[in-house]
Every structure is written in C-alpha cells, then in structure tokens.
C-alpha cells in the first residue's frame, strides 16, 4: 500500500474536496500550510464566506493515491478550525470553474473564429477593446482546458481561472 514514490505516482487520481471551516484569520493558511508541510499537491483552491458569515467554504483539487487522499482528509479534519470535510468525488456532484481569457484578434477572420468558438463553448465576450477580446467561460475544468486548446491558433494575452468549486447533487449538503 505504501510503496515507492514512483508507484505512488502511477495510482494518483484527481480528487475534489470541499471544506467548511470557521471564518477566522489564518484559516486559509492552515490549509495551504498543511499541504506544503506534508508534501501534498494542490491543483487549485478557492475560498469564500458562505451564507453564514462565520463559515468559509473551500474547494480544493488535489491528486493522490487512495492512501494519501485518506491521509489528506484526516489531516484536514484534524485542523481545529475545520468543521466538516467532504470528498465530492465520492458523490454525484457538479463542478464548475470560471475563466477569463484575453485574446488578440489579428484580422477579421480571426475575430469571426474567436466569436464562433465562444458560441460553441457557450462562452461570452465580455469586453472588446483595441482588437482585444476578453471572453468569459464557465464550465468544468476540462471544458476550460478544451476552450484554451481551441484558442492556441490565436494570440492568448492573458488567462485567469478561478479554480474549481463544487457541490453535490441532490440531498447531500455540506452543512453544519
């Protein structure tokens, strides 16, 4: 089960974890510190207060094998400020990420191509200035990757992604 590092990498899969924690100063650094301290990786991390202002909700995406994910969940639960941890990957869940991409259109043809692609991905152009198109795309991280791939033929000026956030389907709320 706990073999060499090389073997560990082979079995690493993506996991999405939701964390509900006390909205205290330093709460975020306790989580990010835990990951660097114990050598876990973070693919993305988003955090904001919830409808209850005393609670923050975090969505964290990480990769690891079964044993390391079990450890991650336990270590997160061990943090005193953490109220609840849920591995969304264990449930039917919805996952979304938002991305802004700024693309330079070199000619009319590329303008049309950018807009066409945005339509296909149900993305919207939210700003145009000096032939610079800013596009908003929302969807699963995979979809965002896909959109970026279609844009490689254009000149990508800037990309900003929110990191994934997620919620379970149906009646499995992460609530106090």
């Amino acid at each position, binding site marked *: 089960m*706990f073999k060499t590092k090389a073997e560990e990498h082979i079995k690493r899969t993506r996991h999405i974890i939701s964390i509900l924690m006390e909205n205290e100063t330093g709460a975020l*650094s306790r989580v990010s*510190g835990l990951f660097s*301290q114990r050598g876990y990786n973070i693919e993305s991390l988003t955090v904001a207060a919830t409808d209850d202002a005393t609670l923050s909700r975090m969505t964290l995406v990480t990769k690891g094998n079964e044993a390391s994910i*079990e*450890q991650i969940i336990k270590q997160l*639960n061990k943090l*005193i400020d953490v*109220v609840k941890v849920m591995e969304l990957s264990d449930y039917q869940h919805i996952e979304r990420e938002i991305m802004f991409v700024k693309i330079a259109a070199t000619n009319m043809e590329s303008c049309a191509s950018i807009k066409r692609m945005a339509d296909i991905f149900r993305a919207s152009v939210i700003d145009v200035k000096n032939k610079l198109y800013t596009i908003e795309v929302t969807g699963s991280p995979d979809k965002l990757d896909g959109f970026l791939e279609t844009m490689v033929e254009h000149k990508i000026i800037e990309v900003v992604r929110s990191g994934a956030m997620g919620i379970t389907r149906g009646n499995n709320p992460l609530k106090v």
Partner: protein
Amino acid sequence: MKLSGAEIFIECLKAEKVDTIFGYPGGAVLFLYDELYKAEERGEIRHILARHEQGAVHGAEGYAKSTDKPGVCIVTSGPGATNAVTGIADAYMDSVPLVVITGQVPRALIGNDSFQEIDIVGITRPCVKHNFLVTKIEDIAPTMQKAFHIAMSGRPGPVLVDIPKDLTSGVDKIAFDYPKDVKMRSYQPTVKGNKRQIKTALTMIAKAKKPILYAGGGVISSKGSKELTEFGQAFNLPVTTTLMGLGAYPSNDKQYVGMLGMHGTYEANKAMHHADLIIAVGARFDDRVTGDLDKFSPDAKVIHIDIDPASISKNVKAHNPIVGDIKEVLQSLFTIIKEQKIKPDKSAYDAWWKEVRSWQSVDCLKYEQDEKHIKAQFVVEKLWEVTKGDAYVSSDVGQHQMWAAQYYKFNKPNRWVNSGGLGTMGFGLPAAMGIQLAHPDEKVACITGDGSIQMCIQELGTCSQYNLPLNIINLNNGYLGMVRQWQEFFYEERYAMTYNKSLPDFVKLAEAYGHVGIRVDKPADVEGALKEALNDTKRLYFLDFVTEPQGNVYPMIPAGYGHNDMYLNKQDALDDMKNKK
C-alpha cells in the same frame, strides 16, 4: 468589577487551576508579569524563571509529562517567542499538553516590523495543535479556555496564545466572565471506540497464533496503563513498548519483551517481525520503530487503537482501526468480554511464547564491565539499582538516551520523560527541573551526555534559584556519541566534528552555580557516587562519569533494514560493512 487584560489573564490561570508557570519576562509581557508578581505575592501562582525560553518550555513539558496537568509557560514577543519554538515543536511531536502564552507588540504596531515583533502564530503553525492571536480584550478569557481545552483533550498537544501588549495594559477594562465549559463545533474528538470494531478486534485476537501488543506514549497520555496491563495479562500477550511508551506496561512483568525499534531488544523486534497480529495501542508506527516499511512485519494483521484518526493507516495500514481514548476503548473491551463471557485461552500462544523465549535467551543487552573504562550501560543499571527503579528519569538525546531506555526498567507510567519525536538535545535538564517542581519529594535523575547537557546548561542557574536537588548523570565519553556511532558504521570511521575537544570542567561548572560536582572515572566508584548524590535530598549533584570513549548502542537496526536484521555487536556491524563492499 472590571478587570484589565492582564488581570483577566491571571483569573484564567486560576480558573484552570494552574499553580506553576514557567517563563521569561520581556517588554511585551510586562503588564502580564506585573500581575503575575501580584499573584505570586498572594500565593496563587508560582512563576519559575528559566534562563532561556527553550528551558522554560522544556520545563513545562517535564512538569506536564510527569503529571496529568498541562504545562504552562509565558514568554515575550520576538526572540522570546522564537526561542520557545524548539520546545513547542518538541511538545507537538510528543503530544505534550502545553499552553504557551507569547506577548505580541501592540496591535497598532503589528505588521510594521516593530521592535521585537515576529509573526509567531505564523512561525508555529506547523508545530502546534492550534494557535491564536487575540485581537480584542473580550476574547482573552474564551481564548485561554479554548487553549486549555484543546491542549488537554483528544490527542494532547501545545497551544499557543499570542496576546498584544495593549490588550493587557489596563486602558480598557471589562468584566471577567469565564464560560462554564467549552463548546466548539469544529473540534469534538472521538473518545468512545466503536463497539463493532472492538468486537472484531476480539475475534482477530482469538484467531491469531502469534499476536503482539505494541504500546506507545498514547497509553500514558490517556492514563490507560492499568487497563493495558490487564489486557496484556488477560490474553497472555507478549508486550513491547515504544520509547515513549516505557512504563506504560511494567518492565518487570514476565510478558514484557522490552522496547522495540532501531535500538530495541532482539526479542521485541523479532517478535514484531514474525507476528501474525499486531495490536497497536497509542503508538504511531514511527520510522524509528518500523525500519524499512517494505520489510516490516510481513505477515501481520494490524489492530490500531488511537485517539488520533490521522495516526491510523498513516505508515502501516490498519486492518481494524479503532478511534478512541485508549482507556475508554480498553474498558469497553473488558465490558464486552464480560457480556459475552469470553474466556481467553491462556495456553493458546504456548508455541509462540516458546519462540519468543528463544529470542530472549540471546540476552541482547548483555555487556561486560571491565575494571578500566566505565561502561555507560553499567552506570544506568547502577542508577536503576540504587533508586530501586522508582526514580523519575529525564534524558537528553543520543546514545545515553538509548542506554537509559534499555537499562532503566520502568514499572510505572510518567516516570520516563524524554524527547522522542523531535529528538531535542538540551531537553533533559530543563525537563528534570519541571519534574522536580511537580514532585518535590521524589528522586529525579537526568541522564545526559557531554554534548546534550551543554545545550541547556544555563538551567543550572534555575536549579540553584529554586533549590532543585536533581541528580545529573552525565555519561561523558567526549564524543557526540550517536553521530559518532553512525560515522563508525556508515561513514568509514570519518569522525566529522563529533569529538568534543574542549569540554568544560563540569565539576567546577556545577560548583560555579552552587551545586556539587563529582568526576567519576573508575568503575568501582560508580555506585558510591550515585548513592551519595541520591541520598542528599537538598543539593543538586552533577555526576560527571568518564565513560568508554567509543562505546556503541546495541542492538541496532540500521536505517533501511528490517526488524529481523540487527547488529547485536561490533562483529555484526563489521561483517555487514564487509558484505556491502
């Protein structure tokens, strides 16, 4: 009546029944010290002035580890706080309940790189159970209460409370209100073990042919030694303990096979290796215990009882995890045994015991004391004899620590106080201070070495101030012995910077602090010196034993080796080195 922040702080300590606080004053804690002064005048709280903040924290650790109370200390901001970090990290690794109060610069100056400002909450985040920066006076009392609650409950650990100076000044005053109990929705440790899993454990034990009970420091933290002993005896299990678990099970019991791990006994390691069932109780499969995980106990199923779920299946997979307080879990186990009228078959493991006894007959801890050089093992064994095995013993880190663990046979919990997880040289003397302060009428010995003792030697001053009649057993071989041993075995005898060329005259040094110093260099004088020191209940004795310069700790499992692969003597090491070439 309205109180200042500093007065509230004192009221919190009183509410938590703190009688002793270790510390070192400074700018940011002046208001707190002013109130401590008054509290001491009133006879409410005793403050112990260490000579270095590290000493203060280790002192609090010694106090906590030898009792069932938390250790409390107070230091100032900046360097006061950073000096405390080693002690805090030590307490974190060994699950010692501590509440450490650090002064912080006034709130208005935080973030300005002010004089003696440091982000101690940030610095200690990875080595505390939890920490707090108090930002308003109303929060002092509830935060202090949470700090004590968190430090003492669940898996114990250090909690740091950082208090800005302006909160304590008295400019603002509020009524003191100490809530009756603590409610934290985010922190509710599991105490009771799952019944179904406990039943499964009993089935697994009944099925096992070669079980072993492997107990750690968690047994002592949970005050579960009595239950552990009953459990082991009821099922006639071979029992081994970790370094931290010494005393959790009586060493003089015939089922005890000694400490396991890198310098554990031959029989304990062999039994672990060949076991088909490991019952781990309050232990965490540390790398110094398991050696190479790939070679660790290949045929064993594992029952793991621990209050910290994160310790279970961290290094070794548990087939039956039981989360809960050791004492509670073992008590429910006994209840189930009674309910189900289980009669353990004491002869079930006869064949297994025969094997274990054959390993014991190797007598792996034997040594020969000649007339010339004092063997460190001999000193520890004599100390054990002279104190009838009933002293409180602290140790530093290195060879002397392992010899202390191997040759001082502890029969009771809380008697053995050492730095296991972090391996902090300099721990022994201040820890012994803390023990003596908690147990003024008991014999306290600090087994140390010429390297370690110099790392917190300034605490000899604290011992004079508070008249602590410690017995310092300095096993002086002139080397940083454990490192030297590794250099001998694994670095072709290149003794890189491990020889102490200019040791102080420890006798004169002890005398300079007002203590008694004796240098002992003949084996024949060892017992007499120990007796003299231990019979004197008034003065601190610094016994400087000149020991064999290049003695080694055996048995030894080299890093990366399995439990069935030990050096029992120098010849084994030499043969292994030859094979490697």
